[in-house]
């Protein structure tokens, strides 16, 4: 295993690696050491000997992280346990991580490539420099099991300049302090990077409208939002979100990045501008599957997203998410639905290794997976 760990870590650091062979090797490793996962595979008569392609590696439903100990090691040895935020079931997902090096390498290489813009091979955005990071999440000290807060801490330590700080404390956004920081940035013409959940940023934009506040931040300022529209009751399109960013902060569309991640994955996917088209780093793959058959949906047809992430060394590399998406058809995409200005949809030789998907949002049937209807609809 030392060998595969070394190879994966190298892949995560450099972006160079052989996905399929590593995926099959990692599946073998996880099958041997992760008892719950092995039981799940064997119940379907699937073993490493019967899997020849990465696409056929069994994916665990994301809900399994709420009920099973999906770890390749005794969970008492975990160096971190990332938990999902409270859900309607009251039981959070728990992702046990033995070695944070994989998560951290994956995050840094992915962030560098898609957000910080210092990737020597592909520049999706201009290099970042070291501006202040204004972070609209709680600090890790207040949310020790939040993968998002942990990620923010890593990127702040790696790229954030003087003045970087968290603006959610004791569970609430400190708007006056954030306003002061933005005012200073505007006056000094110093670029800043804002990072936070989509819903928190929208709430802040509402606050700004109420208080008649807006800024024209330096054009090289940047914004990264995460969480998207999947958890909020409020309906808003991506182009409308980006419009509000421009209206409130003066940050142009091409400096906006949308991050899609979850506590059950160690890697993240990124979209650019008003686009819903997301791409992950080269050690990830995403399939779009038909919910009825479990087979791959053809391009252009919506289905459930199934992610494969080699950075999930300590748990399970294949996750069946409850989000809907589609692989764009070869025809040009309609504006605002996957047409990112800096993203190429065509890779070398047809399907690119980092070919992405269009995120359509949460599967509306995900919460009602039983045979019951919700009484809510009738009692409203």
């Amino acid at each position, binding site marked *: 295993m030392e060998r595969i760990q070394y190879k994966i870590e190298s892949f995560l650091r450099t972006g160079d690696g052989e996905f399929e062979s590593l995926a099959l090797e990692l599946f073998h490793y996880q099958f041997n050491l992760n008892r719950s996962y092995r039981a799940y595979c064997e119940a379907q008569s699937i073993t490493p000997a019967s899997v020849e392609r990465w696409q056929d590696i069994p994916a665990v439903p994301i809900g399994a992280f709420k*009920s099973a100990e999906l770890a390749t090691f005794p969970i008492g040895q975990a160096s971190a346990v990332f938990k999902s935020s409270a859900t309607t079931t009251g039981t959070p997902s728990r992702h046990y991580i033995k070695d944070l090096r994989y998560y951290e390498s994956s995050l840094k290489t992915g962030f560098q490539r898609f957000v910080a813009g210092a990737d020597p091979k592909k520049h999706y955005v201009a290099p970042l420099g070291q501006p202040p990071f204004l972070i609209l999440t709680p600090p890790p000290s207040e949310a020790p099991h939040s993968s998002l807060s942990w990620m923010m801490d890593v990127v702040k330590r790696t790229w954030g300049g003087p003045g970087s700080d968290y603006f959610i404390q004791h569970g609430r956004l400190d708007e006056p302090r954030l306003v002061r920081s933005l005012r200073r940035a505007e006056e000094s013409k110093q670029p800043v990077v804002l990072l936070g959940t989509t819903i928190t940023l929208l709430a802040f934009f509402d606050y700004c409208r109420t208080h008649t506040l807006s800024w024209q931040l330096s054009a090289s300022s940047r914004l990264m939002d995460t969480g998207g529209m999947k958890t909020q009751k409020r309906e808003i399109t991506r182009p409308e979100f980006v419009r509000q960013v421009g209206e409130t902060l003066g940050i142009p569309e091409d400096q906006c990045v949308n991050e899609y991640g979850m506590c059950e994955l160690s890697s993240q996917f990124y979209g650019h501008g008003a686009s819903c088209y997301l791409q992950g780093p080269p050690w990830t793959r995403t399939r779009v599957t038909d919910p009825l058959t*479990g087979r791959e949906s053809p391009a252009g047809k919506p289905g459930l997203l199934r992610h494969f992430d080699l950075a999930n060394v300590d748990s399970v590399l294949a996750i069946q998410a409850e989000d809907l998406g589609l692989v764009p058809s070869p025809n040009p995409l309609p504006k605002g639905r996957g047409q990112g200005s800096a993203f190429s949809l065509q890779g070398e030789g047809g399907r690119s290794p980092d070919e992405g998907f269009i995120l359509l949002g949460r599967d509306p049937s995900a919460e009602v997976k039983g045979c019951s*209807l919700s009484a809510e609809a009738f009692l409203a």
Partner: protein
Amino acid sequence: MLAISRSVSGVDDLVQSLGTVSELWLNPQHPLRTETVQALQVSTGFSQRQVEIGIANCFEELTKPRIIAYVDSLDQVQRSNLRVLHILPSNVFTAWVHGAIITLLLGHRCLLKPSSREPVFARAWRKSIEEIDSSLAKSVEVVDWDERLLHDCQAVVAYGSDETLVKIRSKLPSGMRFAGYGHKLSVAVIFQEALEASRSEELLDTVRRDAEPFRLRGCLSPQVLYIQNPQWIRWPDLEALVDISPKIRPFKRWDEVRQELSKFVPFLSCVGYAGSSEHGDFLKRELRNHGISRICPVGEMQHPSLSWPNGGIDLVNLLH
């Protein structure tokens, strides 16, 4: 002749085998059960306890004596040999087992197409049959989705949302026998006499037995509890015991409940009750025209017998 008259050749053996299969599932030490419980925690997202309760609730109603009693209760029907395709639900992983047992009792072949979200239990159940009676196991086949199956069988039994059922039905040849089990919901009515302080623990325990399985998402899970005494203060104790608590709706007069239940028809599956047998009889009289397939004491809602006409569908009549 019925079907399933036990005098018919092979039925006794079949009942014996199916009963023994249930014993396997009711044995917490059996390796297949242990492995399946672990795998189901992954496929369903339910805890070990929830999975085990689901298995127990299902197979306690499928023991040899229960199957014999069921077979003896049936009118005589001819056994035949159809291919019956069951399109299974997702994480209410046992919902289809009664239908599969009835299919086998009628002498048919049982094709099980598992949900892509829950690929474990159908295979495990077939494996348990293989272990007990390899000849019977030949009548059970776990299949992958293939639209041609809809034409190659003589009947389809499907579980899913109304939208899914409509989609499946639209693909069937005309005249094909079809049973569609759509999404439903259940409620319970707690009458005053069940709320006496001396009976509190018993009430909490019985409500928990119904509310805990399937994280309140089964069609027999009581999503709403109508309670006759709004001052009863023990509900937080229930909330502490289950992942998701039913909604509590106090009432003074029965008319208030009846009016609200009318909103649920025709989606109401089961009405549980806690209180006197007179109140049970009262409910049966009051609700007899509402198309409710099950009225039973609280604590037994998740324990339907083989004779339960789920969704008002008489499966034996459809498949014989």
